[in-house]
């Protein structure tokens, strides 16, 4: 009834966010998550949150700010807020050309080196993993490449995100065909079991991935992540301002083992962010390498 009502008659005037309130909320979000909400997203924030404020019966965005700090429901609200300001958009086999470079060059290279050093150990970090499509895709690729040899390797994919909600879905491991729209049919057949209209990721894939909550703006938290051969952080740093980008990329650099490699989203770049990595250009992808 309430929802029906609010659709039918708009009792309250539209809630507007003032510049001062926007700055207040932006600083709060930044302090909580490192996500920098650019000025041009002001109206988006206003739009998306106005309904929420009405549901909570709040009168202004500064009240919402107080709510986020002090109300008994603030923890849950914070998660909702993050869902509003971030996009969790992701899919299996997102950006196939980049993944091909990952499979044929980056991964092959690391595996060969590890074999040569008689160390069948591999650590991959998926930072900003959203609902799990990315780390599971990596796990599937590992199965595809190593096949039966996989059981002789010690492998872990650490997958982190800020949002508990997306992590819960990731752990669940059930996906619609929309998430699988760019995934080859035979891969779907091999690594998923149908679950009604949906698809459930198989346990042998799931086993390789460990999910956990992390806030990329928390330097200490990042330092505790096990060091990796490869870091994926795709379509995440777009939310950050330059200072935060620099910090996060520096943390990846520190996390990577010598010779390690970083993959970022195809629309992202480290230009003006970091000169520490050596970019390697492949058809369809740039891979950033740390020196040996």
């Amino acid at each position: 009834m309430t929802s029906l009502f609010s659709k039918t008659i708009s009792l309250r005037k539209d809630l507007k966010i003032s510049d001062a309130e926007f700055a207040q909320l932006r600083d709060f979000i930044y302090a909580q998550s490192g996500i920098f909400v650019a000025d041009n997203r002001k109206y988006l924030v206003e739009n998306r949150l106005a309904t929420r404020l009405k549901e909570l019966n709040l009168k202004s965005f500064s009240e919402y700010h107080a709510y986020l700090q002090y109300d008994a429901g603030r923890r849950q609200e914070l998660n909702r807020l993050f869902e509003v300001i971030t996009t969790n958009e992701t899919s299996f086999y997102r950006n196939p050309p980049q993944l091909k470079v990952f499979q044929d060059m980056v991964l092959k290279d690391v595996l060969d080196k590890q074999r040569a050093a008689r160390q069948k150990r591999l650590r991959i970090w998926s930072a900003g993993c959203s609902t799990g499509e990315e780390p599971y895709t990596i796990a599937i690729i590992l199965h595809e490449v190593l096949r039966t040899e996989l059981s002789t390797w010690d492998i872990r994919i650490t997958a982190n995100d800020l949002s508990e909600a997306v992590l819960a879905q990731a752990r669940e491991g059930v996906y619609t065909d929309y998430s699988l729209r760019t995934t080859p049919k035979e891969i779907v057949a091999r690594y998923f079991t149908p679950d009604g209209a949906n698809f459930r990721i198989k346990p042998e894939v799931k086993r390789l991935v460990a999910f956990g909550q992390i806030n990329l703006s928390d330097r200490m938290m990042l330092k505790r992540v096990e060091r990796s051969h490869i870091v994926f952080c795709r379509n995440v740093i777009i939310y950050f301002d330059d200072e935060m980008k620099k910090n996060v990329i520096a943390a990846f650099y520190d996390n990577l083992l010598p010779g390690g490699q970083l993959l970022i989203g195809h629309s992202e770049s480290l230009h003006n962010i970091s000169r520490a990595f050596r970019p390697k250009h492949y058809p369809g992808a740039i891979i950033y390498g740390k020196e040996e």
Partner: protein
Amino acid sequence: MADCKDLCQRLGSDDTDVLRDAAYEAGESGCVEAVGHLARLLCSRNLGVQEAADRALRKIGGKEVVAAVKPLLRSDDAPTRNASMDILRAVGVQDFPTLIELLHDADPDIRIFASDILGSTDSRLAVAPLCEALLKDHEVNVRYQAAVSLGELAFADASSCLGKAMEDDEWVQFAVIEALAKIRDASSVGALVKALDRSSDLVASMIVDALGEIGNIKAVTMLLKRMDASPEVLRNKIVKAVVRILGGKALSLLSAAERERFREYLLAALADDEEDVQDAAVSGLGSVGGEAAATAVLAHAARIDRDRHPERYEHAVAAMREMGLTEALGRALREGGDARRMVALDVLAALPCAACSGLLMDAFADLPEEMRPAAAHALAAIAGEEAAAFFLELLGGDDEALLLEAVSFLGGKLRLPAAGEAVFALLGHPSAAVTEAALDACVAIGGEGLDARFREMFASDEPMERLMAVYALGKMGVRDHMDVIRSALSDEVPDIRKIALEALAEMCGHEEEGLPLIVAGLSDENRDVRLAVVELLGGCDSDKIYPYLEQALSDTDDWVRIRALEALGNRGERDAVPRLLELAGEPSKLVALKAVEVLGEIGGPAAFEGLLRLGAGDDPELVAAVEAAIARLRDEQGER
């Protein structure tokens, strides 16, 4: 954070991880002693270390950093050199004398670097030395860089030396023109205009652009004079510059002959390859007007991809409107393709003119179906009574967009009683948007007929219908419908109770009839209803409501209490102070902070004293709020 000595030691390590960490901390803690080490690490072959040192040096800043980084400008290693340049761009201003000294270095490369860095200092002090370099340095690249930097600084004092530099090499001239354009000062105009006559076409076209950007009227005569003798591309640029400088209005001040001549140039410029030239021509044509101009601009607007360039499209439409009702519009509606028709509709939507609504109604039936909503929208925006019959007919249709236009026109704009029944019938429409619009239209139209209809509707079993009825009857006059409102106050659906309460708002001061009904809602089981009551009381202009607000302060819901607090604050209720002081000690932070804020709002000796006592508490957030409240009271005292 580690201490500085320790950091310096760690900066001597050969483990890259240790180095990066130490550099980071040195930067964060501003450890000046580490600067020497960091400068050394800037030359490290390890990129990770180099970068960490770079960041730290920027963070630390100051003379020491400038001094330590300066020698690296001479490094043979390009990355090191670039890094030191970048750092000096960021912190160089903190040691000006060193930068000036570099500007006189024997090595021209260093002088170029120094000019470049001075351009990022944002300091007026950099103008004189850069001007000297611009006019006296014998290396052309130094002069070029000096001009670029003067533009970056954009201080007007640089105009005169830049003007002198227009005698220099063409290569330097480019930079000078750009710099003058950035300075945008009247003093730059003279220098540019003077140079216009003896310049090559290439330089002239840059000057013309620059003059347009500066926008100073002094340049116009010169520009017009140059027009006839110029090749087409340059001529179009001049058209653009003149339009930019004069703006629309002043163009109509040109003499008739001049205007005729200029219109031809504008029409030609509409076909230029560059979009901003086209846009300028559109503005110009909009103000000189005429059929030829209208036809050309309309055709031009129809060619613009409005999804990709909405602002260019709007611009052309605005120019069309400036020209008023032209034949071109009617022709486009009657015989144009879709794109031209759309332009005509968009123009007409905000072109109030006597003949315009007739034009739209005549064309309506022959328009393709998907364009009719836009036509109806345009018509609704500009028409009056004469379109009533037209829209009444639309009410019989089933196109949602057309219905919305008709409902808001007949109800909101005309308030036409004859439309009442038909609009009321739409309350059952499946589209929520249509129902909502129809409800508002009914309220606007009003009258006995609709009144009876809504009363009937209130007896419905459908909550949605009862809700609409209460809403409408409340808006159409509470006093005439007290029986309905009263019964709605005990409806089983909370939203209906809320609407009924809101309808009573205007009667809140009425002690016998209004107030008792309203405050009964304070014990409603539904929190949103109670919130509505408190909000209503807060907005009520009556001296009888204090006890009820006080009652609400003991509500079980924090936000009900907060709203009650706010209401007390707005009313400046001094009697509430003791209770507020109590609430300031509440475990609920939200309530406590609000109570403190309200104490600051209400003021008075008791509040002030109470606040002082609260300020001695040990919850930092609360204490901060108390301090803010006290400061507010002090300010207000001061103002008196």
